[in-house]
Protein backbone atom coordinates (compact mmCIF):
# COMPACT_ATOMS: atom_id res chain seq x y z
CA UNK A 1 0.00 0.00 0.00
CA UNK A 2 1.41 3.36 -0.99
CA UNK A 3 1.39 6.54 0.99
CA UNK A 4 -0.23 9.16 -1.18
CA UNK A 5 -0.07 12.89 -0.50
CA UNK A 6 -2.43 15.08 -2.47
CA UNK A 7 -2.34 18.85 -2.70
CA UNK A 8 -1.21 19.21 0.89
CA UNK A 9 -0.80 22.60 2.52
CA UNK A 10 0.84 22.92 5.89
CA UNK A 11 1.44 25.69 8.39
CA UNK A 12 3.93 26.09 11.17
CA UNK A 13 3.27 28.53 13.96
CA UNK A 14 0.15 29.76 12.17
CA UNK A 15 1.99 30.71 8.98
CA UNK A 16 1.59 28.64 5.79
CA UNK A 17 4.90 26.98 4.98
CA UNK A 18 4.08 24.52 2.22
CA UNK A 19 1.36 24.62 -0.39
CA UNK A 20 0.13 22.09 -2.90
CA UNK A 21 2.54 19.28 -2.12
CA UNK A 22 1.63 16.20 -4.13
CA UNK A 23 3.78 13.12 -3.99
CA UNK A 24 3.59 9.43 -3.44
CA UNK A 25 5.75 7.03 -1.50
CA UNK A 26 5.39 3.63 -3.17
CA UNK A 27 5.95 0.42 -1.27
CA UNK A 28 9.46 -0.92 -1.70
CA UNK A 29 10.96 2.46 -2.51
CA UNK A 30 12.80 5.22 -0.77
CA UNK A 31 12.30 8.92 -1.42
CA UNK A 32 14.86 11.49 -0.39
CA UNK A 33 13.33 14.77 0.69
CA UNK A 34 15.44 17.77 -0.11
CA UNK A 35 15.15 21.45 0.40
CA UNK A 36 17.17 24.23 1.99
CA UNK A 37 16.96 24.97 5.70
CA UNK A 38 13.51 26.15 6.61
CA UNK A 39 11.91 24.68 3.49
CA UNK A 40 9.44 22.73 5.58
CA UNK A 41 10.86 19.21 5.57
CA UNK A 42 10.31 18.68 9.27
CA UNK A 43 6.85 20.15 8.98
CA UNK A 44 5.91 17.74 6.19
CA UNK A 45 7.28 14.71 8.00
CA UNK A 46 5.44 15.60 11.18
CA UNK A 47 2.21 15.91 9.26
CA UNK A 48 2.72 12.51 7.64
CA UNK A 49 3.44 11.00 11.05
CA UNK A 50 0.11 12.39 12.20
CA UNK A 51 1.58 14.83 14.68
CA UNK A 52 0.14 17.93 13.10
CA UNK A 53 -2.99 18.60 11.09
CA UNK A 54 -2.97 19.78 7.49
CA UNK A 55 -4.43 23.08 6.38
CA UNK A 56 -5.83 21.42 3.31
CA UNK A 57 -5.19 18.38 1.16
CA UNK A 58 -5.05 14.72 2.04
CA UNK A 59 -2.61 12.09 3.24
CA UNK A 60 -3.73 8.52 2.65
CA UNK A 61 -2.22 5.19 3.57
CA UNK A 62 -0.23 6.55 6.50
CA UNK A 63 -2.41 5.63 9.43
CA UNK A 64 -0.75 3.32 11.95
CA UNK A 65 1.90 2.38 9.44
CA UNK A 66 4.46 5.04 10.20
CA UNK A 67 7.66 4.76 12.19
CA UNK A 68 8.83 8.31 12.75
CA UNK A 69 12.30 9.45 13.80
CA UNK A 70 12.58 13.12 14.68
CA UNK A 71 15.53 15.41 15.34
CA UNK A 72 15.35 14.15 18.95
CA UNK A 73 16.06 10.49 19.51
CA UNK A 74 13.51 9.47 22.12
CA UNK A 75 16.28 7.68 23.97
CA UNK A 76 16.01 7.50 27.77
CA UNK A 77 19.39 8.30 29.17
CA UNK A 78 18.79 6.43 32.42
CA UNK A 79 18.02 3.14 30.67
CA UNK A 80 20.57 0.91 29.04
CA UNK A 81 20.69 0.47 25.28
CA UNK A 82 19.02 -2.90 25.58
CA UNK A 83 16.29 -1.62 27.88
CA UNK A 84 15.56 1.25 25.54
CA UNK A 85 15.12 -1.09 22.59
CA UNK A 86 13.14 -3.64 24.56
CA UNK A 87 10.76 -0.95 25.66
CA UNK A 88 9.97 0.14 22.13
CA UNK A 89 9.74 -3.45 20.95
CA UNK A 90 7.17 -4.11 23.67
CA UNK A 91 5.21 -0.98 22.86
CA UNK A 92 5.01 -1.86 19.18
CA UNK A 93 4.65 -5.57 19.92
CA UNK A 94 6.92 -6.47 17.08
CA UNK A 95 9.19 -9.11 18.52
CA UNK A 96 12.86 -9.29 19.28
CA UNK A 97 15.59 -6.70 19.39
CA UNK A 98 18.50 -8.87 18.30
CA UNK A 99 18.25 -7.97 14.63
CA UNK A 100 18.26 -4.29 15.52
CA UNK A 101 21.27 -4.65 17.78
CA UNK A 102 23.12 -6.48 15.09
CA UNK A 103 22.22 -4.10 12.28
CA UNK A 104 23.76 -1.15 14.08
CA UNK A 105 26.58 -3.04 15.81
CA UNK A 106 25.23 -2.11 19.22
CA UNK A 107 26.23 -5.37 20.91
CA UNK A 108 29.30 -3.89 22.67
CA UNK A 109 27.18 -1.03 23.95
CA UNK A 110 24.11 -3.06 24.84
CA UNK A 111 24.50 -2.84 28.61
CA UNK A 112 25.66 0.76 28.83
CA UNK A 113 23.35 3.47 30.05
CA UNK A 114 22.29 5.61 27.11
CA UNK A 115 23.55 8.65 29.01
CA UNK A 116 27.11 7.43 28.54
CA UNK A 117 26.92 7.15 24.76
CA UNK A 118 28.57 9.58 22.40
CA UNK A 119 26.40 11.60 20.03
CA UNK A 120 26.81 9.15 17.15
CA UNK A 121 26.31 6.10 19.33
CA UNK A 122 23.08 7.58 20.65
CA UNK A 123 21.92 8.27 17.13
CA UNK A 124 22.62 4.67 16.16
CA UNK A 125 20.42 3.58 19.04
CA UNK A 126 17.71 5.96 17.83
CA UNK A 127 17.86 4.41 14.36
CA UNK A 128 17.89 0.85 15.70
CA UNK A 129 14.54 1.69 17.26
CA UNK A 130 13.02 1.78 13.78
CA UNK A 131 13.82 -1.87 13.28
CA UNK A 132 11.90 -2.99 16.37
CA UNK A 133 8.72 -1.12 15.42
CA UNK A 134 7.80 -3.50 12.62
CA UNK A 135 6.18 -0.56 10.83
CA UNK A 136 6.38 -0.54 7.02
CA UNK A 137 6.75 3.20 6.39
CA UNK A 138 9.79 4.94 7.77
CA UNK A 139 9.64 8.69 8.02
CA UNK A 140 13.05 9.98 8.96
CA UNK A 141 14.21 13.51 9.74
CA UNK A 142 17.95 13.89 9.11
CA UNK A 143 18.74 10.40 10.36
CA UNK A 144 22.47 10.54 9.74
CA UNK A 145 23.29 13.53 11.92
CA UNK A 146 26.48 12.82 13.91
CA UNK A 147 27.04 9.45 12.24
CA UNK A 148 30.48 8.51 10.95
CA UNK A 149 30.87 6.97 7.50
CA UNK A 150 30.72 3.41 8.82
CA UNK A 151 27.46 4.08 10.60
CA UNK A 152 26.00 5.83 7.55
CA UNK A 153 26.73 2.65 5.58
CA UNK A 154 24.97 0.59 8.27
CA UNK A 155 22.01 2.87 7.96
CA UNK A 156 21.97 2.58 4.17
CA UNK A 157 22.08 -1.20 4.48
CA UNK A 158 19.22 -1.16 6.96
CA UNK A 159 17.15 0.97 4.61
CA UNK A 160 17.90 -1.31 1.68
CA UNK A 161 16.89 -4.39 3.67
CA UNK A 162 13.72 -2.62 4.73
CA UNK A 163 12.86 -1.74 1.13
CA UNK A 164 13.59 -5.29 0.00
CA UNK A 165 10.93 -6.47 2.43
CA UNK A 166 8.41 -4.22 0.80
CA UNK A 167 8.75 -1.33 3.20
CA UNK A 168 9.21 2.26 2.17
CA UNK A 169 11.16 5.22 3.51
CA UNK A 170 10.89 8.98 3.26
CA UNK A 171 14.16 10.55 4.32
CA UNK A 172 14.88 14.25 4.80
CA UNK A 173 18.59 14.85 4.55
CA UNK A 174 21.20 17.29 3.36
CA UNK A 175 23.96 14.80 2.68
CA UNK A 176 24.41 11.97 0.23
CA UNK A 177 23.42 8.63 1.69
CA UNK A 178 24.56 6.41 -1.14
CA UNK A 179 21.02 5.11 -1.61
CA UNK A 180 19.48 4.64 -5.05
CA UNK A 181 16.34 6.60 -4.42
CA UNK A 182 14.11 9.14 -6.04
CA UNK A 183 14.73 12.70 -4.89
CA UNK A 184 11.82 14.96 -4.07
CA UNK A 185 12.65 18.63 -3.76
CA UNK A 186 10.38 20.74 -1.58
CA UNK A 187 11.59 24.11 -2.83
CA UNK A 188 8.85 24.58 -5.48
CA UNK A 189 6.12 24.07 -2.91
CA UNK A 190 7.12 26.91 -0.67
CA UNK A 191 4.02 28.81 0.36
CA UNK A 192 3.97 32.38 -0.85
CA UNK A 193 2.57 35.41 0.86
CA UNK A 194 -0.62 34.97 -1.10
CA UNK A 195 -1.17 31.33 -0.25
CA UNK A 196 -4.74 31.03 0.91
CA UNK A 197 -4.86 27.53 2.14
CA UNK A 198 -7.00 27.88 5.19
CA UNK A 199 -4.24 28.99 7.54
CA UNK A 200 -5.56 29.38 11.04
CA UNK A 201 -5.09 33.11 11.15
CA UNK A 202 -6.47 33.70 7.69
CA UNK A 203 -9.81 34.69 9.10
CA UNK A 204 -8.14 37.73 10.57
CA UNK A 205 -6.65 39.05 7.37
Amino acid at each position, binding site marked *: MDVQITDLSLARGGVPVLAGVTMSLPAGQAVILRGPNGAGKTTLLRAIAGLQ*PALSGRITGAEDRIAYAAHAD*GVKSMLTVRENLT*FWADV*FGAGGIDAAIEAYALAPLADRLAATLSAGQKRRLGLARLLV*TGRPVWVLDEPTVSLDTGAVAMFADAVRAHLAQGGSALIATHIDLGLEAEVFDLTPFKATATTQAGATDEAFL
Partner: protein
Amino acid sequence: MKALLLRDLRLALRAGGGFGLALAFFLIVIVLVPFAIGPDPELLRAVAPGVLWLGALLACLLSLDRLLALDFEDGTLELLATAPLPLEGALTIKALAHWLTTGLPLVIVSSVLGVMLGLPSAGYLWVVVSLGLGTPALSVIGTFGAALTVGVKRGGLLMSLLVLPLYVPTLIFGAEAARRGALGLDATTPLLMLAGITCGVVACMPFASAAVLRMGLR
Protein backbone atom coordinates in the same frame (compact mmCIF):
# COMPACT_ATOMS: atom_id res chain seq x y z
CA MET B 1 1.09 -1.14 28.59
CA LYS B 2 2.95 -3.32 31.01
CA ALA B 3 6.17 -2.31 29.29
CA LEU B 4 5.36 1.33 29.86
CA LEU B 5 4.52 0.79 33.51
CA LEU B 6 7.69 -1.17 34.12
CA ARG B 7 9.76 1.40 32.31
CA ASP B 8 8.29 4.27 34.29
CA LEU B 9 8.80 2.48 37.59
CA ARG B 10 12.33 1.61 36.63
CA LEU B 11 13.10 5.17 35.63
CA ALA B 12 11.59 6.44 38.87
CA LEU B 13 13.79 4.10 40.85
CA ARG B 14 16.89 4.82 38.86
CA ALA B 15 16.75 8.52 38.22
CA GLY B 16 18.30 9.57 41.46
CA GLY B 17 15.83 7.84 43.73
CA GLY B 18 12.68 9.47 42.40
CA PHE B 19 10.93 7.00 44.61
CA GLY B 20 12.02 8.50 47.89
CA LEU B 21 12.12 12.11 46.92
CA ALA B 22 8.42 12.95 47.03
CA LEU B 23 8.43 11.29 50.39
CA ALA B 24 11.35 13.35 51.53
CA PHE B 25 9.65 16.51 50.37
CA PHE B 26 6.52 15.58 52.30
CA LEU B 27 8.60 14.95 55.38
CA ILE B 28 10.30 18.28 55.00
CA VAL B 29 7.10 20.26 54.59
CA ILE B 30 5.71 18.64 57.71
CA VAL B 31 8.91 19.44 59.57
CA LEU B 32 8.92 23.05 58.43
CA VAL B 33 5.37 23.73 59.54
CA PRO B 34 6.22 24.00 63.26
CA PHE B 35 9.09 26.33 62.44
CA ALA B 36 6.72 28.51 60.53
CA ILE B 37 3.74 28.59 62.85
CA GLY B 38 5.54 28.04 66.14
CA PRO B 39 5.94 25.08 68.48
CA ASP B 40 2.66 25.37 70.41
CA PRO B 41 1.35 21.77 70.59
CA GLU B 42 -2.30 22.82 70.77
CA LEU B 43 -2.07 24.79 67.59
CA LEU B 44 -0.14 22.03 65.86
CA ARG B 45 -2.69 19.42 66.80
CA ALA B 46 -5.49 21.56 65.44
CA VAL B 47 -3.86 21.98 62.05
CA ALA B 48 -2.37 18.49 61.81
CA PRO B 49 -4.86 16.76 59.45
CA GLY B 50 -4.97 19.76 57.16
CA VAL B 51 -1.22 20.11 57.07
CA LEU B 52 -0.80 16.42 56.27
CA TRP B 53 -3.20 16.73 53.36
CA LEU B 54 -1.62 19.92 52.11
CA GLY B 55 1.85 18.40 52.38
CA ALA B 56 0.81 15.31 50.44
CA LEU B 57 -0.79 17.47 47.80
CA LEU B 58 2.30 19.62 47.35
CA ALA B 59 4.60 16.60 47.26
CA CYS B 60 2.42 15.10 44.54
CA LEU B 61 2.46 18.34 42.64
CA LEU B 62 6.18 18.78 42.75
CA SER B 63 6.85 15.30 41.49
CA LEU B 64 4.30 15.71 38.70
CA ASP B 65 6.39 18.46 37.27
CA ARG B 66 8.44 16.20 35.08
CA LEU B 67 5.95 13.38 34.62
CA LEU B 68 5.68 14.18 30.93
CA ALA B 69 8.27 16.93 30.57
CA LEU B 70 11.24 14.57 30.48
CA ASP B 71 9.55 12.36 27.91
CA PHE B 72 8.74 15.41 25.85
CA GLU B 73 12.23 16.80 25.89
CA ASP B 74 13.92 13.71 24.59
CA GLY B 75 11.26 13.10 21.97
CA THR B 76 9.75 9.98 23.55
CA LEU B 77 6.32 11.53 23.75
CA GLU B 78 6.09 12.14 20.00
CA LEU B 79 7.11 8.57 19.39
CA LEU B 80 4.57 7.28 21.91
CA ALA B 81 1.88 9.31 20.22
CA THR B 82 2.63 7.53 16.93
CA ALA B 83 2.86 4.11 18.61
CA PRO B 84 -0.01 1.58 18.49
CA LEU B 85 -0.74 2.22 22.17
CA PRO B 86 -3.85 4.38 22.69
CA LEU B 87 -2.67 7.60 24.26
CA GLU B 88 -5.45 7.41 26.85
CA GLY B 89 -4.09 4.09 28.06
CA ALA B 90 -0.51 5.35 28.06
CA LEU B 91 -1.49 8.34 30.20
CA THR B 92 -3.47 6.19 32.63
CA ILE B 93 -0.43 4.00 33.01
CA LYS B 94 1.74 7.02 33.59
CA ALA B 95 -0.64 8.25 36.27
CA LEU B 96 -0.62 4.81 37.86
CA ALA B 97 3.16 4.74 37.89
CA HIS B 98 3.16 8.18 39.43
CA TRP B 99 0.76 7.09 42.13
CA LEU B 100 2.76 3.96 42.90
CA THR B 101 5.97 5.92 43.27
CA THR B 102 4.52 8.96 45.02
CA GLY B 103 1.01 8.64 46.39
CA LEU B 104 1.33 5.22 47.91
CA PRO B 105 4.51 5.93 49.88
CA LEU B 106 2.96 9.18 51.09
CA VAL B 107 -0.09 7.33 52.37
CA ILE B 108 2.09 4.86 54.17
CA VAL B 109 4.24 7.37 56.01
CA SER B 110 1.56 9.92 56.71
CA SER B 111 0.54 8.24 59.94
CA VAL B 112 4.10 8.32 61.23
CA LEU B 113 4.41 11.98 60.41
CA GLY B 114 1.12 12.61 62.17
CA VAL B 115 2.95 11.84 65.42
CA MET B 116 5.22 14.79 64.93
CA LEU B 117 2.30 17.15 64.70
CA GLY B 118 0.62 15.59 67.70
CA LEU B 119 -2.28 14.15 65.72
CA PRO B 120 -4.66 12.45 68.21
CA SER B 121 -4.37 8.71 67.86
CA ALA B 122 -7.98 8.32 66.72
CA GLY B 123 -7.06 10.41 63.71
CA TYR B 124 -4.39 8.19 62.15
CA LEU B 125 -6.78 5.78 60.55
CA TRP B 126 -8.80 8.57 58.99
CA VAL B 127 -5.82 10.42 57.63
CA VAL B 128 -4.52 7.24 56.04
CA VAL B 129 -7.88 6.20 54.61
CA SER B 130 -8.66 9.63 53.21
CA LEU B 131 -5.19 9.97 51.67
CA GLY B 132 -5.45 6.46 50.25
CA LEU B 133 -8.73 7.32 48.61
CA GLY B 134 -7.69 10.79 47.50
CA THR B 135 -4.14 10.49 46.16
CA PRO B 136 -5.11 8.51 43.03
CA ALA B 137 -7.28 11.44 42.05
CA LEU B 138 -4.34 13.77 42.64
CA SER B 139 -2.16 11.71 40.29
CA VAL B 140 -4.77 11.54 37.55
CA ILE B 141 -5.65 15.22 37.72
CA GLY B 142 -1.96 16.02 37.81
CA THR B 143 -1.40 14.05 34.63
CA PHE B 144 -3.98 16.25 32.98
CA GLY B 145 -2.10 19.32 34.15
CA ALA B 146 1.19 17.90 32.94
CA ALA B 147 -0.36 17.15 29.55
CA LEU B 148 -1.68 20.69 29.34
CA THR B 149 1.71 22.25 29.92
CA VAL B 150 3.80 19.89 27.86
CA GLY B 151 6.14 21.87 25.68
CA VAL B 152 5.73 25.05 27.66
CA LYS B 153 9.03 26.40 28.92
CA ARG B 154 9.03 26.67 32.69
CA GLY B 155 5.93 24.56 32.59
CA GLY B 156 6.43 23.45 36.17
CA LEU B 157 5.08 26.51 37.84
CA LEU B 158 2.35 27.04 35.27
CA MET B 159 1.27 23.48 35.82
CA SER B 160 1.01 24.04 39.56
CA LEU B 161 -1.12 27.04 38.85
CA LEU B 162 -3.46 25.08 36.60
CA VAL B 163 -3.62 22.00 38.75
CA LEU B 164 -4.05 23.49 42.19
CA PRO B 165 -7.59 24.74 41.61
CA LEU B 166 -8.50 21.35 40.18
CA TYR B 167 -7.24 19.82 43.41
CA VAL B 168 -9.59 21.91 45.54
CA PRO B 169 -12.58 19.52 45.71
CA THR B 170 -10.34 16.55 46.49
CA LEU B 171 -8.56 18.55 49.15
CA ILE B 172 -11.76 19.82 50.74
CA PHE B 173 -13.38 16.42 51.13
CA GLY B 174 -10.15 14.66 51.99
CA ALA B 175 -9.07 17.14 54.65
CA GLU B 176 -12.62 17.35 55.99
CA ALA B 177 -12.76 13.57 56.38
CA ALA B 178 -9.38 13.53 58.12
CA ARG B 179 -10.33 16.42 60.38
CA ARG B 180 -13.65 14.94 61.40
CA GLY B 181 -12.02 11.60 61.97
CA ALA B 182 -9.39 13.22 64.20
CA LEU B 183 -12.11 14.91 66.23
CA GLY B 184 -14.01 11.66 66.56
CA LEU B 185 -16.92 12.89 64.43
CA ASP B 186 -18.65 10.98 61.68
CA ALA B 187 -16.56 11.15 58.50
CA THR B 188 -18.47 8.91 56.11
CA THR B 189 -20.05 11.67 54.01
CA PRO B 190 -16.82 13.39 53.00
CA LEU B 191 -15.19 10.01 52.50
CA LEU B 192 -17.94 8.94 50.15
CA MET B 193 -17.67 12.18 48.23
CA LEU B 194 -13.93 11.69 48.03
CA ALA B 195 -14.34 8.16 46.69
CA GLY B 196 -16.84 9.49 44.17
CA ILE B 197 -14.41 12.14 42.94
CA THR B 198 -11.63 9.62 42.60
CA CYS B 199 -13.77 7.17 40.60
CA GLY B 200 -15.14 9.86 38.33
CA VAL B 201 -11.75 11.38 37.71
CA VAL B 202 -10.05 8.07 37.02
CA ALA B 203 -12.79 7.13 34.58
CA CYS B 204 -13.01 10.38 32.62
CA MET B 205 -9.83 12.38 33.01
CA PRO B 206 -7.51 10.28 30.83
CA PHE B 207 -9.60 11.16 27.78
CA ALA B 208 -9.20 14.83 28.47
CA SER B 209 -5.48 14.37 29.13
CA ALA B 210 -4.93 12.49 25.88
CA ALA B 211 -6.89 15.05 23.88
CA VAL B 212 -4.92 17.87 25.41
CA LEU B 213 -1.62 16.11 24.88
CA ARG B 214 -2.36 15.58 21.19
CA MET B 215 -2.96 19.28 20.83
CA GLY B 216 0.17 20.14 22.75
CA LEU B 217 2.33 17.99 20.54
CA ARG B 218 1.03 19.54 17.36
